[in-house]
């Protein structure tokens, strides 16, 4: 289970976008940590090591949650919009995260409006989040390692010069590639970011 948590943590840290949530994993791990902590005998040498390990795992989980919160705070409008238009049911936000996101957005807009917008001329009193460009950078290049064999992976050419490449992704091979091309693979767990 620790390996899964580590993978989720590295993926979330390295990915420019907010990944689907793994609340079950987090819940399960926290429960396990609590049980471990309660079964410790204080002062014993072995329990000191166990306590260290508990602290380390707790750090990883907290950092995962913190990274997710940070991403939500950076692009709240984009994330909420994506969540509302997501039909396939792949939940990106937990209900609590969704509540946090919408409240954060509301607070932000209230502040900007009361501070500035209501004092400006009437016809420009709106915030256009699309134009503000508050979106994750999907063109960022990321390192990835392939877990499952993918045959015939199509990389579209952005400059439309008909230079589309079709490559085979061997397992355990490593690549440096634009994030946009592999975001689906990441979500279906066929690759991992490094």
């Amino acid at each position: 289970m620790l390996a899964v948590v580590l993978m989720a943590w590295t993926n979330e840290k390295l990915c420019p976008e907010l990944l689907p949530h793994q609340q079950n994993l987090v819940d399960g791990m926290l429960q396990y940590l609590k049980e471990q902590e309660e079964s410790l005998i204080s002062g014993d040498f072995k329990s000191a090591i166990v306590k260290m390990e508990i602290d380390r795992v707790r750090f990883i989980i907290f950092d995962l949650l913190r990274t997710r919160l940070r991403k939500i705070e950076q692009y709240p409008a984009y994330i909420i919009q994506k969540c509302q238009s997501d039909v396939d049911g792949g939940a990106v936000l937990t209900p609590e995260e969704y509540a946090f996101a919408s409240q954060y957005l509301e607070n932000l807009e209230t502040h900007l409006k009361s501070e500035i917008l209501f004092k400006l001329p009437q016809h420009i009193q709106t915030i256009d989040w699309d134009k503000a460009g508050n979106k994750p950078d999907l063109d960022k290049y990321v390192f990835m390692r392939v877990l499952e064999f993918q045959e015939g992976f199509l990389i579209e050419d952005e400059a439309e010069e008909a230079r589309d490449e079709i490559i085979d992704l061997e397992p355990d091979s490593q690549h440096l590639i634009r994030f946009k091309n592999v975001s689906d693979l990441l979500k279906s767990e066929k690759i991992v970011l490094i």
Partner: protein
Amino acid sequence: MFGEKALELIKDLKRHEESSIPPFNDDVVRHVIEESNSLYEQNQVEVNAVRDGDESFLPSIRLRHAGVERNKRCLLTYAYTRIERIRALRWEWGSVLPPDIRYSLSESEAQWFTKYNKCLAQYMRSLPGGGLDLTQDMQPPKSLYIHVRCLVDHGEFETEDGSVVNLKKNTQHYMLRSQCEHLIRQGILEHII
């Protein structure tokens, strides 16, 4: 020239490093808003003239509109960047800000901060295990116990296993990391490497 005052706001932010906030520049902000409003009013007069058929005012209308848009963009950037910095301060200092930082915030920003605190606390409370404090454990633990030196007199401090430690100035202690972390962040203890 239009938009110069707005640039001053941005320069003000850039001059201060990322972890500090300059006092809210109320004067310049008000100036920029007034400038935008007056540009808009001047534009209104000319738009009416254009509607009556006189096309020669179009370039000046466009110029003023561009000026208004630029002012709006600079103002929004100023407000948004300050909010980002205040957010970072919450994670560094906790939910109570030191008075000199609080002095630099405008009223609306102070209100935003209170609301953000509430929002964050609500999320943390809803986490499994009866609520978790995510501001703990900000760095990966290197060892279980750490040496710390006390910087100010803090009186007696009870550790997890019941033993009481007397935190007098310049005394050194060897304590569990989880106990010290929040005191280190407050500045009462100092981690000795």
